[in-house]
């Protein structure tokens, strides 16, 4: 049923979204570790400091089938519904679109009326996704001008190409592939856009066959994983330009464009460089009408005793940072970088996007360090900072510790654990742990976090 006034969680601009009231709930994708017999679940975590159940899991909805590997998910509608060229402001931000990365099953979950008791209202079975989209392994969800955009890693048979398909934001019908002309694009991972420039950008990981049995060292050393980003005409759905970061830059993952629609730049993280195991963050920007790239952050590998390293890394005598996720605050001021390998979480001031300045760092977990959380100082932690989410006002940062089931084992062979933490961010720069917020879960691994009412990677805006 359409609303009489715009959904109160839709904001015309990122600036207005920052004035939103703080979130009270976080929805967290929870996946069954290998060997478990549990179905995956979506967890609800209380993030309201005034609540008696603050920092605890207060709800859960379990998926109907086994083996989904819930990963990234998103809303049916968000602030882009206010875009002036295709406004539909009276739909509700209400349903979470939650895909299984391994099963290709997509769940539509209703978060109203009680966010503590979300309910599954529709399931798109894998066969339907294969038949109608000719894609598989759905991943990132973005609500946008034409409805819901779903990222996928590959074709139904597990090869490429991966790409994007569309869902209707009200009926959740699969509308078909998004691309009209994909040009040379084959590998796919993340995507997002600059709505003010009618431009979509996409990144590269690997096809399902390249990743589902774990990271394959032979493919990695032969530079077969993704090392490009692609620029698309969002309006005509055509490939415009491929930007190569260099073959040694392996696995180009999360894309975070500036939220301000008048700014044409953004950041993308690279997991590892074959040259020296470093990780990096690159800036894409518009230069005389074409798009260009520049490496703006490089994070070196840390020397380590081979005895403390998993078999895959022993020969290198170093622990790679493995930048797996990045996130940009809504004012485009702070960039957060997860180093899943070293267990470091970094904050950069990117007011000048060409010259980021490091303004904060905390450590937790890590392949070698196993740094503990202040709430349980004697408990060494495995896993590292991974999926990160920033609150709309930019003052609270949440992150979880699992990467991808088949890969967790390779880097944390004795178990990756399961934890979610929260940081407080100083508006002037600087981050520190909220010592009272440490959510552990014995049954599940935890992955992406979405905050009630929207967060720093869920919404896009058409007004500055």
């Amino acid at each position, binding site marked *: 049923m359409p609303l009489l006034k715009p959904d*109160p969680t839709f904001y015309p601009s990122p600036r*207005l979204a920052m004035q939103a009231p703080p979130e009270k709930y976080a929805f967290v994708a929870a996946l069954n570790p290998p060997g478990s017999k549990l179905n995956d679940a979506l967890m609800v975590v209380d993030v309201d400091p005034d609540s008696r159940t603050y920092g605890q899991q207060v709800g859960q909805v379990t998926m109907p089938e086994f083996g989904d590997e819930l990963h990234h998910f998103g809303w049916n509608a968000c602030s882009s519904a206010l875009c002036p060229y295709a406004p539909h402001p009276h739909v509700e931000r209400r349903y979470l679109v939650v895909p299984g990365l391994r099963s290709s099953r997509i769940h539509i979950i209703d978060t109203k009326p009680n966010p503590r008791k979300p309910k599954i209202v529709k399931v798109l079975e894998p066969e339907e996704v294969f038949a109608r989209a000719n894609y598989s392994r759905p991943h990132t969800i973005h609500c946008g001008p034409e409805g819901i955009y779903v990222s996928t890693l590959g074709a139904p048979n597990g090869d490429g190409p991966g790409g994007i398909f569309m869902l209707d934001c009200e009926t959740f019908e699969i509308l078909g592939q998004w691309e009209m002309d994909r040009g040379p694009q084959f590998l796919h991972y993340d995507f997002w856009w600059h709505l003010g420039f009618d431009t979509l950008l996409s990144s590269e990981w690997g096809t399902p066959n390249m990743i589902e049995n774990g990271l394959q060292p032979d493919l990695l050393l032969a530079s077969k994983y993704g090392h490009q980003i692609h620029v698309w005409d969002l309006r005509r759905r055509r490939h415009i330009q491929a930007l190569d970061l260099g073959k040694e830059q392996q696995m180009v993952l999360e894309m975070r464009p500036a939220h301000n629609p008048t700014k044409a730049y953004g950041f993308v993280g690279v997991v590892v460089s074959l040259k020296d195991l470093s990780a990096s963050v690159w800036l894409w920007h518009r230069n005389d009408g074409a798009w260009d790239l520049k490496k703006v952050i490089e994070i070196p590998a840390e020397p380590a005793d081979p005895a403390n390293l998993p078999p895959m890394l022993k020969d290198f005598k170093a622990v790679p940072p493995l930048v797996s996720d990045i996130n940009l605050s809504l004012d485009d001021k702070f960039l957060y970088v997860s180093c899943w390998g070293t267990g470091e979480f970094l904050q950069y001031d990117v007011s000048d996007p060409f010259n980021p300045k490091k303004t904060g760092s905390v450590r937790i977990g890590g392949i070698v360090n196993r740094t503990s959380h202040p709430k349980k100082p004697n408990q060494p932690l495995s896993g590292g900072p991974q999926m990160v989410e920033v609150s709309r006002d930019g003052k609270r940062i949440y992150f979880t510790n699992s990467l991808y089931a088949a890969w967790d084992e390779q880097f944390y062979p004795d178990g990756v654990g399961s934890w979610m933490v929260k940081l407080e961010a100083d508006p002037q720069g600087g981050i520190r742990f909220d010592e009272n917020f440490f959510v552990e879960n014995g049954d599940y691994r935890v992955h992406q976090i979405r905050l009630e009412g929207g967060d720093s990677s869920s919404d896009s805006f058409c007004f500055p």
Partner: protein
Amino acid sequence: MFTRFASKEAILPAIRSVFREWALAVADAVGWLFAVGLGLQEQKRIAVLRALPPIALGHALSIATIIAAVLLARVTVPPFDLKIAAAAILFAFGLYRLFRSRHPNWVGMRVGFGDLTLWSFVMASAHGAGLMLIPLFLKSAPQTLAPHTAPMALHMHPTCGLEFSNFNTPSLLTSSVAVHTLGYLLVTGLLAMLVYEKLGVGMLRRAWFNVDLFWMLALMATGVLILFL
């Protein structure tokens, strides 16, 4: 009667017409908003103003299409049949849009004159902007007034469609579309500048009522009323 109350008769319809244009512009909701969006994107007032002519033109084309269709139908279709058909179309359109409010599939902030004209045409058509004007063109022309008094009537009653019925078809089409579009342009421009310069887009959160619902109900009601014309 027309001459005796000329001045009063000239003002009332003018006020009425401004309200109607206002309602149309707000109901269409998006022409002025796109102009604001383009202004904010380029961070220039001139971008708001530059967007107005194509938006008005697209709107005019959409309305002209509907009015032309009615005027054409009036020549060939018996009045009673036309009335029934018009009523059915309005009612059905309102009902359909009430239950299936698919949002328009348009993507693109980088738009030129042609793009904006097309966009405005599509939006106005999808909204049924022209349909609401149909009743004004259904009544057959009174035989008593001679054609040469028509320009006078236009002058005094800018948008009272009934008075237009005196015209021969092409001039009736042109003048009614022109007057309607002028009103639309005025309100769209005022609203766009007001929001761009003063109010800011934050007002969307408070003041963007779902007039679509009322608009569609109004279309259906008008459909029913046509039957009693």
